[in-house]
């Protein structure tokens, strides 16, 4: 069975500090991978997607970047956090761009 793991579970960071969030999918070969940001109040915003190793497409510009160094790994990062980066970050996977399966999320608080 496929599993999706996100790390860390939660982070408290200072404005201006760097950030790296990770996502790993096990049990699925060559999945499509996605990063979402969810603000307090619940609206989902897709940030990035990747359909193959080494290729990442940006959906919105929020001073974040993403990379896919391995088939089963998706990394979200920034060198300088803003207050507006606070929220809930969700990783998801799919096959052929249809239904998505989400990870448990990482809660980020920027102070």
């Amino acid at each position, binding site marked *: 069975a496929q599993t999706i793991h996100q790390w860390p579970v939660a982070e408290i960071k200072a404005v201006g500090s760097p950030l790296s969030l990770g996502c790993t999918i096990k049990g699925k070969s060559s999945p499509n991978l996605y990063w979402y940001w969810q603000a307090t109040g619940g609206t*989902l915003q897709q940030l990035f997607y990747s359909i193959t190793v080494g290729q990442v497409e940006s959906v919105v510009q929020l001073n974040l970047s993403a990379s896919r160094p391995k088939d089963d790994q998706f990394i979200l990062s920034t060198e300088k956090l803003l207050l507006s980066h606070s929220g809930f970050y969700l990783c998801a996977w799919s096959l052929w761009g249809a239904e*998505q399966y989400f990870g448990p999320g990482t809660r980020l608080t920027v102070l």
Partner: protein
Amino acid sequence: AQSVTQPDARVTVSEGASLQLRCKYSYFGTPYLFWYVQYPRQGLQLLLKYYPGDPVVQGVNGFEAEFSKSNSSFHLRKASVHWSDWAVYFCAVTSGGNYKPTFGKGTSLVVHP
């Protein structure tokens, strides 16, 4: 452009009552439609999915949804709500090979005893 509208930000029902959560979509082409549920402090879970075919689809925990092309709708229903259904429900539209699905803003379901 594709869009999803969930007109009710919050729905309150009594336990045991029936439920309908509304979803209207706009999509150029053949839509695939989904309902997801999010419990507090968790990720989204797929509740049910519609691919072109039978307009009524069954999901987990007694949920079902009906696709209507004429009304551009994909409403979620449940005959008898349980307190454990208290969560936020998201409707989404995409299609095969489309890597940018569109989600609605979500409907918060509150269940009273």
